Each structure stands twice: as structure tokens, then as C-alpha cells.
């Protein structure tokens, strides 16, 4: 038994006896209404998707998920391929299932793969990851008082992030992958 507050990407909810994978979710508090979690779920057997909204005070049944540490290998026509670090078993996630987090994948990066009945159903990338800035406007020096002013920068995996203006091309930065925001300069 569980609470809708425990819903996360890759969790499997048992609904009417069928396993449904959470593909996205969002907490919503409609004006003065109860607290809800809006989810998109996908039937693990049929692939059918549904929009479901749960009240946070409800009780849910989650299926047992096995989490395995794997490394990202490469992208091919099956999608994103990962390898189990212990037994070298390989699994793949379709482009659609990998979703927006694909932009954080780098060769060899360690991820947590959720396995349900032998299938990879979700991939969690580390919460904080290091990236190199490959493109940005030149650094502005001697302006430490406004150190919180930001500019756009392109990372080595190709996504854009807002970074402080004192950073340069070639600098390494830590990005929070849950929010997509810059955290700090990598040491």
C-alpha cells in the first residue's frame, strides 16, 4: 500500500489488477481545493496511456520494482542502451520512454534503472551531474557584486542552461537534473 505522495517517474501502480507505469506526474493544488497528483500512466502490458488524477489522501497499491545500477552505453535504433555493471546484461529504453532526461546522458554515466518483470521501465539519472560548457558569451570579469546575473550556455550534451556570467567556455558546471538548473561551478 502507498500514498500518491510516493508517486515518482517509473513507479508501477496496480489499477484494476493491471500494472501501470507512471511516465510523468505533477502535484497540483487547485484554488482552495484538495491536493492532487496529476499523472500520465502507461499500461505495462498493452502500452495504452491514461491521464489519472489522484487525491493525495487516497491509498494506492504499488508493484515491487527492482532497481539496478547500470551504465549508459550508446543510442541505436532500439533507443538508449544501458549495461548492468555486475552481470553485463544490456537493456534498452525507447526514445519516448527516456523522454526529456535523454539530454543528460553521457557515455559511461551511471544511472538507476527500474526493472519490472524483467523489463526496463524507467531510468533515473543522478540528481547532480557535471557538464562542460561548450558555447556561451564571453565571461564578464570584475562584476562580482552582480554574481547572480545569468546568461545562456550550451553544454557538452547539447542542452541549454542558465549560468552566472563569470563562467567561460570550457568551464565545468554542476546541474540539478530534476530542475534543469545550474547549481555551482564544478571543483
Amino acid at each position, binding site marked *: 500500500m502507498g500514498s500518491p505522495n510516493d508517486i515518482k517517474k517509473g513507479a508501477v501502480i496496480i489499477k484494476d489488477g493491471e500494472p501501470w507505469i507512471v511516465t510523468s506526474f505533477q502535484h497540483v*493544488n487547485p484554488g*482552495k481545493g484538495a491536493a492532487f497528483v496529476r499523472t500520465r500512466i502507461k499500461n505495462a502490458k498493452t502500452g495504452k496511456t491514461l*491521464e489519472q488524477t489522484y487525491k493525495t489522501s487516497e491509498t494506492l497499491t504499488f508493484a515491487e520494482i527492482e532497481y539496478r545500477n547500470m551504465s549508459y552505453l550508446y543510442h541505436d535504433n532500439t533507443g538508449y542502451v544501458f549495461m548492468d555493471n555486475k552481470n553485463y546484461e544490456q537493456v534498452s529504453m525507447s526514445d519516448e520512454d527516456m523522454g526529456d532526461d535523454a539530454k543528460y546522458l553521457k557515455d559511461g554515466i551511471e544511472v538507476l534503472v527500474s526493472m519490472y518483470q524483467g523489463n526496463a521501465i524507467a531510468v533515473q539519472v543522478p540528481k547532480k551531474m557535471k557538464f562542460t560548457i561548450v558555447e556561451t558569451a564571453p565571461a564578464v570579469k570584475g562584476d562580482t557584486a552582480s554574481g547572480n546575473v545569468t546568461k545562456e550556455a550550451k553544454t557538452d550534451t547539447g542542452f541549454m542552461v542558465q549560468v552566472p556570467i563569470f563562467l567561460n567556455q570550457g568551464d565545468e558546471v554542476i546541474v540539478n537534473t530534476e530542475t534543469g538548473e545550474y547549481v555551482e561551478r564544478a571543483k
Partner: protein
Amino acid sequence: MNIENLQVKAEVIKAIRAWFDNQGFIEMHTPRMVALPGQEPYLEPCWLDVKRQTSNVKCRVALVTSPEYAMKKLLGAGLDKIYDLGPCFRDNEPWDGSHDPEFLMLEWYRRNAGVNELMDDVLNLLTFVISKQRNSKFEIRNSIKKMTVEEVWRVYAGVELAPLLENREAMAKLASEKFGQTVTDQDDWDDIYYKIFLSEIEPKIEAGEPMFLYRYPASMAALARKSEDDSRWADRVEFYAGGLELANGFAELSDPVEQRKRFEEEQNLRRRSGKEVWSIDEELLNALPKMGNAAGIAFGVDRLVMLVTGAKSINDVIPFSARDRLGKN
């Protein structure tokens, strides 16, 4: 944190005050610490203990979730057009990209007004505030779309809501059979309404242009007057823009007998869900008949600043957000 956004925020606040001053509103600085906070069943106040130096007795006080009660008492005391701009506090919020437990709320009230006047105010206020910004990422073009709750259900979900009002069984059947929602025995009519609304309708509203949603089912407007032509609906309005819910307003209920009944229903709902219950604010009930046919609306200023600056998270328009200063672990 983003210094540029904070500079824009200061300009937005300056423009808001200028607009209200131009319109003849008076700014009120209502208390943040109160003994009897709002009793909405789904809002949780933050509580703290305060004591007088000469006493050992601690008073338990709440930080306001909105200045609503004080503002209504001030209308009852004879004021006509008032606004309050200050922080409000809510416990048990998600602390995500659009909620901070301490946020900047603008509330204004007018005597002899209804939801139409509130919608006009929002349009005129936003037009003015945006005109004062150099690089606003948010624009309003002369008018804002208006749709009733009945219309959005018809257009976005293909459902005629009127025949379903107050009919829980029919709503439950619709939710599970047409929309595949899970309905439990604990879900009341409003809960089922939201399960469908949040999955099927709100995402479409949020993806579209700025919009007023008005005329709500009467059960969803505990502090609003019922619509004159049909008492199953109430005069409540919400304003959506850029994927955010920015404002929530009512033609305010001024009947103290009806208001007491609704407060008692809210208390029962709180009790049933195991939440704390406190006394009804009798001074508020006494003030209601003296308030006349007033209308009032609460407007999230941080969210407006998000739209004007293009910030994706409320944490980018607050100097030290709760997530940063309190949520390290």
C-alpha cells in the same frame, strides 16, 4: 536566485501600487499574525507561539493564508476600495516550481461589484503593469478570453456539467467509464470534479492563451454569492495565464446566516479528514452585512513576475526561496 528578476519584481510592485493609487484604492496593511485564520478545508496555516513579556501564557497564533477576513472587516467598517499587498503563508505546500510556503499576495476588494468588475480590474491592472516594464515576456492584447466552467467542460471534455451538478453517482460513473479515473467511496462530488478537470480540462486551459474561468459549481465557492439566475452556480472567477493559476476571486457572500452554515460545513470537512478545527470568527460574521455587495480577488504576485520575466520557477523570482533556505535536506 536571479538578481535581474528581483529588479523586475520591484518594478512590477511599484506599478501595481501606482495603478491602485490611480484608481482610488487605499492600501491596507492587515495583520499577518491572527488568532482565527481562514478555515478552508484544504489550506493549512503555519502556527507559532507568541507571549507578552509580562505573562507566562503563550498565545497560539497563525500566519494568514490570505488577508481576506481582515479585508472584509475593513469593508464592514466603511471602506469602499481597498487593497493589501504582502506575504501570505501556507503550510504543507508542494515547494515546487510554482509554490513557495511564503509568497507575495495581492488582494483587492470593491463595494457594489461582482465578478465582471473583477475581470475588468485584472485586465486594466495587467495592461498598466506590463506597459511599465521594458522587456515583458508577457503580453495582454486589449482583452482576455472568458469562459464559464460549464463552457470549458463542454468544449474540452465534451461533457454537459449542469445536469450532473449535485449528482455524485452520475459524476462517479462519468469519471470511471468515460475517463478511466479511479473513484473511491471517500471522493465527494468536488473531488470527482477535480479528477476529471485536472486530467482533461486544466492542461488545455494552461496550454492556451490567458483566460478567465468563471461561474463555478456552488459547492466550490464557500465565500461567494450564488449566481442570481441559477443558485446551482456561484460567482467565482479564476485567472489562468502561461500555464499558471494567477488569481481567484469572488462576488463575496454577505449573508451571515448562510456564511455560518458554510463555515460549519467546512469545519465538519476538516474534522472528518482529521484536521485541526478552530472557532468561527464572529467579528467577521458581524461585518458581512455591512460590507454590501462587495467583490474581492487574490492575485499571486510572484507568479505574475514569473510571466513578466519568463522565469520557469517561482524560486527564480524570490530572493531566498524556501526550497533553497529551508529545504537543503
